[in-house]
């Protein structure tokens, strides 16, 4: 694998996913202003779906692309987490309408973040395998399957599924709120 990928091949996939997410966000929420339901509903369904896919599965595209681009793991990781991080930061900023800044920062630790980390681990594992397959097809001599990506997929899936099985995330949310009360009390 080429470990000296260009800056363009690093940020281009991030930019693509970001633009798709942003446009679909704008169209999805903007469509609510349309009173004609035969227009609003299809727009909402299509762009809501694209928005969801871009946030949650855009990182798979980014990691795969940057892997093929030959970037080191540190940079691939940074590029992969950027879109979900921006998405969560949006919520943190919005929360500041109601809560002090420090409490808003605590929002980064919410259970969805844990789920997102698991999902990213799975996607990075899959992205590694896909990247290797693509490189193989381009003639590079690369072993597709190795321990690290498989372990990332399996561990990510176990934790992800485990949290879901353990009360569909409600138990984790309870722990999260316990942590809030331990740090901030009732907040008032």
């Amino acid at each position, binding site marked *: 694998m080429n470990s000296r990928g260009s800056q363009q091949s690093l940020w281009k996939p991030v930019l693509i996913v970001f633009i798709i997410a942003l446009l679909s966000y704008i169209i999805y929420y903007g469509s609510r202003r349309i009173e004609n339901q035969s227009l609003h509903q299809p727009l909402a369904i299509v762009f*809501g779906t694209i928005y969801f896919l871009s946030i949650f599965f855009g990182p798979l595209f980014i990691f795969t692309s940057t892997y093929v681009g030959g970037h080191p793991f540190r940079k691939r990781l940074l590029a992969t987490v950027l879109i979900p991080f921006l998405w969560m930061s949006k919520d943190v900023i919005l*929360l500041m309408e109601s*809560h002090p800044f420090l409490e808003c920062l605590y929002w980064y630790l919410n259970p969805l973040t844990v789920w997102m980390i698991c999902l990213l681990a799975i996607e990075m594992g899959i992205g590694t395998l896909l990247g290797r397959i693509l490189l193989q097809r381009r003639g590079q001599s690369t072993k597709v399957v190795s321990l690290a990506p498989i372990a990332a997929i399996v561990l990510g899936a176990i934790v992800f599924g485990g949290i879901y099985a353990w009360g569909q995330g409600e138990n984790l949310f309870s722990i999260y*709120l316990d942590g809030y009360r331990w740090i*901030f009390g*009732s*907040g*008032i």
Partner: protein
Amino acid sequence: MKSTPPSPSNHRGYNRRDALKLMGITLASGLTTLALSRIERHDNSAPNNPSLQNRTSLDPDQQIERQISTNLGTLSSGTKPNIIFILGDNHHYETMGCAEHPFIHTPAMDQIAREGIRFGNTFSPTPLCSPSRASFLTGAYAHKHGVKNNHTPWTGQMTTFLEYLSDHGYATAFIGKWHMPGEGLPEMPFLDRFISYTYREGQGAYFNCPMIVDGQEVPSRKPYITEEITDYAIEFIQEQLAQDEQERRPFCVYLAHRPGHPPFQAPEGISGMYDTADVKEVLPDVVDPWWYGKANRNVFQGIMMGSYYNQYRRYCETLTAMDRDIVRILDLIDQKGLRENTILIYMGDNGMQWGTHDCHGIREPYEDSIRLPFILRAPWLIPDPGNLRQQMALNIDIAPTLLEVAGVPIPEDMDGESLVPILSNPNVQGRESFLLEFWRYFPENTPSYHGIRTEQYKFVEFERGREPWLFDLQLDPSELKNLMDSEEGEQILNELSSIMEA
């Protein structure tokens, strides 16, 4: 509230800013002394007023009063009435068959409304689970009982109506969802049974929820939570009835259910029953069937919730599941011949916004959040079963109402007012206004607020992040036109200020 134009002298030199300032100061600093206009209910129209007894020519109101007087006399010659108070969770006030919901199946609630009455204007001044639950128990606003949000512990600083009833000879049981913060469940030695759960912050679980029965942790006996706690309630009632008649006490059961709290899960036989229900009639156009994203001021804002239509269908299924177990309570009461001396109440702890104003949740000061379902059956009190009461009622009215029904003096520290006069006489005037108050609750994205709601207007002032709201609820029931920056709004604020000053 009667709308009267301000006098020139009142209007002159008293602008909107002054009005806001006055209201803010009054609301923030003097909540406990807030002079929310109260009406004199125990007046000459009171059922037991002897001055009415000798009249020979009675108008319809007087006939009703005479009927009530007779009924009350009938009951008082026997034992004190039994009390069953049933509480739902996040139950939108119109999601009942008796409220003309287009598809939900709620035969028990419909029966209660048919044989009793439904209140069409009932509210929680603090639309959040724990504060509302504390208000039911204490008859007080949240600023007085101290449970201000779902993180603020229950301190027991105010006496619950259950304790007053116990002190006056009632067998009392708290069964179901306690859901107030604190270390486990509180000590309530006056209760004959205290059956609840602390699982998941006291939210419990729909299936196989571990219970705490009189201080002992026990596994669930029935898989589904409403069936589980209804079984306990029925056992408690049967235990009371099994007592020797000389020793038998009247009973009070406080039965708090989990439906319709998310994640919505219904039992077998009910799950899926609304799969084909047309929810478009109920949900606003702004939501879409697939990916309704939590919008305006919601946690997880922007997250796709999956099929919002299906979420709503599942919500309705949990309410139907609860209703199925309320049927069992009704059947027991009727089969045991307790119908004529048992007051049975169903209410919700707060409302629920299903996409209105692009919001999903319970704590915004919109009508969908603050309004409660409220139905009540008490044959000896209600002269006109099957009717609707339009007077404003609050969750804080329940405690004083039940105490009056039980013949127990109403403590002065209760903010609520007994609804017995309204139950007895549909023409009695209700309260004219009440206080709205909310303390921010992390992580929900709603700032602290306070305000006032009258029959016509709603004014809300936020601690931070938002401009105040002022709605004319008669002209704009959907709360779409904020009048704050209008001349009309200025005039309304002056009127509201005069209420506050009074």
